[in-house]
């Protein structure tokens, strides 16, 4: 079994209110020197068999169709994690 990781981020030109709130909380807790925070989503899609090109293509399509809204978000990365946790 392998897991495909899909990372979705708000588009750079879209204001990210959650990231902004996290960013302003950090210095209050003493974590200085962080200029900006943007908050996204990571999906872990575990597949039964091997991760073939066909499976990856299907996941990329799902990422564009359901997992992200292209109006406000970008799918920034699709990677494969094997059973040991190593990311290819």
């Amino acid at each position, binding site marked *: 079994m392998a897991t495909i990781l899909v990372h979705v981020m708000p588009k750079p030109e879209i204001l990210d209110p959650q990231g902004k709130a996290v960013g302003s909380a950090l210095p209050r807790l003493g974590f200085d020197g962080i200029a900006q925070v943007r908050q996204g989503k990571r999906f872990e899609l575990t597949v039964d068999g091997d991760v073939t090109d066909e499976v990856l293509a299907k996941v990329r399509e799902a990422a564009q169709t*359901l997992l992200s*809204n292209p109006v406000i978000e970008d799918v920034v990365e699709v990677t494969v994690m094997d059973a040991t946790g190593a990311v290819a």
Partner: protein
Amino acid sequence: MTARIGVVTFPGTLDDRDAARAVRLAGAEAVPLFHADADLKDVDAVVLPGGFSYGDYLRAGAISRFAPIMETVVDAAKGGMPVLGICNGFQVLTEVHLLPGSMIKNEHLHFICRDQTLRVENAETAWTTEYQADEEIVIPLKNQDGQYVADERTLDELEGDGRVVFRYVGWNPNGSRRDIAGITNARGNVVGLMPHPEHAVEPGFGPDSRDAGRHGIDGLAFFTSAIKGLLASA
């Protein structure tokens, strides 16, 4: 003839009863529609009410958009049927691409609930003919993800084509681009807005009005507009 207006219930919808009540008070028959059912039951118009369908999981409206009823609603909307999306219903309409843009979290991050003044900028859509252009109305607003966003080109297009139907007046409550509270499609039959007209339809239960507390019924004309249009074309 009595117009039949369908009100869709998704898992997590909150305002379907209020929307149905508004439809009845305006003089039409309210027909309950269910998300899992692709049948529109011969309705003449559809309301997608507010709430938190699927708990707003993933993105508000993102999962409801794939409900069997939505395929039928999209077909009917493309055929010219009046469709109104209120709050979460507006979010569903953007996710299903009947309306452009999207809603993100309120700029100030707080859930907001208040009586909101809006300016009617387009009184020619299927849901606004009973208003005057530039008329100001007060209806409740309550949301968490109400900040309307779209790229500049889309916003310019909306403005140029007169497709901004409602704008926030006095205060922009969620950071929406260009104070946009509601928009329509090119044909004017599909309208989506964040504030809730169905909560301002009955004296005693609406926002405060000039006449008396809780007596504002500025939302009723959404529904009477649609009904008048349907009866005229029947």
